[in-house]
């Protein structure tokens, strides 16, 4: 077992800041914390004794927090030595169920977009931190924050849906049909059977979210947002091997 070794202070220590994506129980009182770090990509670390009420880690290693950590390197599992809260976003999500479920979908997506541990992904780290901050501040509707995060996250992974050109032939322009298997918007010549025909406003919303044009996004109707969420979710599920567990549980209010 990787974490079964004697806690050796000979292991190199390092410092990084990170977003807590997930916590899982380990043994009697420990937890495995999945972290998206600024410089070391996604890592998993053991927090010893964190479930005891007297733990000096306290609530700092709860999900969704932005924390400053001192870690001991390990093969596979790292060990949390010290942690300070930079911004513990959970406190804004605990008494707001729709925000909690939205934050869960963001955290699960971040984990799924980083299949390989310890591969630096600064842009995804910044995107994730920005999404949780916007959610905590209530900067925009939850559903828009989530869909913007999913679209840009897919963009970083190289799966962004084509929105301003045909996904097949590349002809520029806003096309009326949308096909998940084809890769997004498709022109009349390339449109495969079974392509969807979303409202033009929906494609505009997706473009606005992908490029960060919040002025347009904030002004959209609920029906447009719902259609957008459906297409974004379908596009994401197509590219992930298995669907997100949290997405069907998101309370879109």
């Amino acid at each position: 077992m990787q974490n079964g070794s004697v806690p050796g202070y000979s292991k190199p220590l390092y410092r990084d800041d990170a977003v807590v994506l997930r916590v899982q129980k380990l043994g009697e009182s420990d937890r495995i914390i999945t972290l998206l770090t600024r410089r070391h990509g996604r890592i998993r670390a053991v927090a010893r004794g964190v479930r005891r009420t007297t733990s000096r880690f306290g609530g700092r290693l709860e999900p969704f927090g932005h924390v400053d950590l001192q870690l001991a390197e390990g093969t596979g599992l790292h060990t949390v030595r010290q942690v300070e809260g930079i911004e513990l976003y959970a406190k804004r999500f605990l008494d707001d169920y729709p925000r909690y479920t939205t934050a869960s979908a963001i955290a699960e997506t971040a984990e799924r977009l980083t299949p390989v541990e310890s591969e630096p992904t600064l842009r995804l780290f910044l995107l994730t931190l920005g999404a949780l901050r916007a959610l905590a501040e209530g900067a925009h509707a939850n559903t828009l924050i989530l869909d913007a995060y999913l679209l840009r996250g897919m963009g970083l992974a190289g799966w962004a849906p084509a929105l301003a050109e045909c996904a097949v032939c590349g002809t520029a322009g806003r096309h009326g049909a949308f096909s998940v298997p084809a890769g997004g918007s498709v022109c009349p010549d390339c449109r495969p059977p079974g392509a969807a025909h979303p409202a033009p406003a929906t494609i505009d919303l997706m473009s606005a979210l992908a490029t960060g044009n919040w002025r347009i996004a904030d002004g959209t109707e609920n029906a447009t947002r719902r259609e957008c969420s459906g297409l974004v979710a379908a596009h994401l599920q197509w590219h992930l091997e298995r669907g997100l567990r949290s997405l069907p549980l998101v309370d879109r209010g």
Partner: protein
Amino acid sequence: MYEGAIQDLIDELGRLPGVGPKSAQRIAFHILSADPADVTRLATALRKVKELVRFCAICHNVAESEQCRICRDPRRSDEVLCVVEEPKDVVAIERTGEFRGRYHVLGGAINPLEGVGPDNLRIRELMIRLGEGTVKELILATDPNTEGEATATYIALMVKPMGISVTRLASGLPVGGDLEYADEITLGRAFEGRRAV
């Protein structure tokens, strides 16, 4: 790898929560060298727990009959209901001797990352119980972590329109700790829950 029966035992023990391969091996060899009567008692206890123990039809706590000991106790109040995640939380609260109402065991907490939503817990059963109209106060005693808090928030949202008083266990500073080590969420909660002295 050992031969036959001892390896089978190590493998079975190793599947238990919190038992790693080294612990499994240590426990297996302890059993091997233990008094045969002790081992028989352990084996009987294991078999009986699966044969006799089931879940209470009312509160979903572990029980040895249709209803658990607490639901059958006529001296306890039907007007106060305490919601917990697991049967072990019932035991923890009973140890305080502070609570004389009834319980409702959810069977976990809402955790979207693990695919656990409200429909996977005994929340619908809770709503049916509350719909009977006897309960005046609902105490939400889910774990003071993110999943437990979110579960309490969800239940409070569902119950508020029913006109039942909903309370949450106070969370704050652990007895025996130093104030300076408290994180901002815990300290913030402790301020919210302060009381006159």
